[in-house]
């Protein structure tokens, strides 16, 4: 009956979202009066999962799983869920989790709700709140199946400490060649750069910056704040910045703590994509820019004057607060 949670790691280390999904699973387990079991794959240490409420860690070490393969990971989760008799499985919203979730759902005959933002509203019927229409609305969805899969939206629940002593158990699911039907040839990951998916802070530039040669000050601000860089759709369409930085309805969603929009007017599609961010700052010359209606803090001013000055101030702030 234990709530099963998949705690993702990278090069052996847990991501922050792993602690968030455990915190969330703890919340569900308390509602349902049951325990939390975390499945880890090739993680170095697992004791930190107890801090956020895991009662048990099922630990899988297998070199064949060093590279992510959705079918093999889904199969490991299926077997763990069956072993634990889990009725609820909690996943993050990482690219890998979203890849394996529908495969897992079919394997377990489980209903799957993605982009869930809060604990279930009721247990019977089992109803969850999720975002829909790319953050322009919320949708209350009932999962009707016996086994349920929840994809938790990033940064929606936060970390909650629960201080459990997690027991540990090794786990060796049976994996066949059929689970490795996708051959990973190469992985090309930016090193030493914060990704939009993991970022607490995102600094984003728009057409107001006039050209790709002016991105130095955006990157500088991102460096100072330990932030990821992002951009609006026209900027990526014009090739000023790579598509991987495009945030908005047809690009990536952003759910950071702080989103700083520089020279972005705030088209409805852009605002939808970044709406899940907690605090939004806009810097724009045009006081009529729609972004001012969506932002928490705004500066009406020329980015070319404001941003370099702000960067200096942020450097001073960081120097005196670190």
């Amino acid at each position, binding site marked *: 009956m234990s709530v099963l949670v998949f705690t993702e790691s990278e090069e052996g280390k847990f991501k922050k979202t792993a602690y968030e999904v455990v915190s969330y699973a703890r919340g569900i387990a308390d509602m349902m009066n049951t325990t939390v079991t975390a499945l880890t794959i090739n993680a170095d240490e697992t004791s930190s999962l107890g801090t956020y409420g895991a009662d048990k860690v099922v630990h899988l070490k297998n070199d064949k799983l060093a590279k992510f393969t*959705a079918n093999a990971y889904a199969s490991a989760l299926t077997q763990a869920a069956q072993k634990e008799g889990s009725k609820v499985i909690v996943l993050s919203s*990482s*690219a890998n989790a*979203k*890849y394996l*979730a*529908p*495969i897992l759902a*079919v394997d377990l005959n489980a*209903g*799957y709700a*993605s*982009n869930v933002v809060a604990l279930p509203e009721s247990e019977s019927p089992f109803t969850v709140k999720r975002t*829909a*229409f*790319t*953050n*322009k*609305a*919320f*949708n*209350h*969805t*009932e*999962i009707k199946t016996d086994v349920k899969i929840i*994809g938790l939206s990033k940064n929606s629940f936060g970390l909650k400490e629960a201080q459990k002593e997690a027991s540990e158990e090794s786990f060796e699911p049976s994996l066949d060649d059929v689970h490795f039907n*996708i*051959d*990973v*040839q*190469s*992985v090309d*990951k930016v090193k030493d750069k914060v*990704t*939009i998916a*993991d970022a*607490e*802070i995102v600094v984003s530039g728009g057409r107001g910056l006039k050209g790709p040669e002016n991105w130095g000050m955006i990157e500088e601000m991102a460096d100072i*704040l330990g932030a990821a860089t992002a951009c609006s759709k026209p900027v990526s*369409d014009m090739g000023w910045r790579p*598509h*991987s930085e*495009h945030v908005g309805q*047809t*690009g990536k969603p952003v759910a950071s703590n*702080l989103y700083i929009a520089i020279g972005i007017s705030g088209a*409805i599609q852009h605002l939808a994509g970044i709406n899940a961010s907690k*605090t939004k700052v*806009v810097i724009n010359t045009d006081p009529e820019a729609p972004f001012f*209606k969506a932002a*928490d*803090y*705004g*500066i*009406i001013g020329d980015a070319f*004057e*404001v941003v370099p000055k*702000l960067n200096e101030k*942020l450097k001073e*702030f960081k120097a005196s607060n670190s």
Partner: protein
Amino acid sequence: MKILVCISHVPDTTSKINFTDNDTKFDTNGVQFVINPNDEFGLTRAMWFKEKQGATVDIINVGGPETEPTLRKALAIGADSAIRINTEALDGFQVAKELSAVAKEGNYDLIIAGRESIDYNGGMVPGMLANLIGASFVNTCISLEVEGETATAIREIDGGKETVTAKLPLVIGGQKGLVEESDLRIPNMRGIMMARKKPLDVKEPQGADTETKAVSFEKPAPKGEVKLVSPDNLDELIDLLHNEAKVI
């Protein structure tokens, strides 16, 4: 090569989102419907396979007659024929199940879907469909080549990309990158005329079960007023971010 492109019929990205019937239904009043953008990138990539590699391209949608203009538009862009499974799309599993019956029967080499629709953002149909028919599956696909029985795809991952190979049949969850925005095609008059004569086959559904139910909707709470900070007083902004919002 036989390609099937799954087309969702969704509100245009500029649509204002409202609900009716006590917040249980999406209000279609005054809303323009389009091909789901993630699907349109895939459809355009399918046109490339048609023109360069002689592929045939069928399109499919699960939905009522109101989705036919969207299918006709995809035909006008260049797809060869359309299939509409005549039932309301209720949840991701039901749609995947309905699609799987046609996908199996049609023996497609490649099935292209969008990574998610921009209305319900479920992000589950392509993966479920692949699993139901036992095909390979690549999600968040941003590049796709096919040679013989093998596909080479690039998948977007958090903070980078990954190149993979897979045997056909293959299902992808596609997105921008499969083609560029500037490659998207606006149907011309000839395309529109030809689309009227192309087959649009209406199939009755299998009656697949649903696993989830969209019970109701709500709009986000209205946002408070923006706090304006003078560009000459940037210390105030830093103070607000540090002490009020507590984000730096």
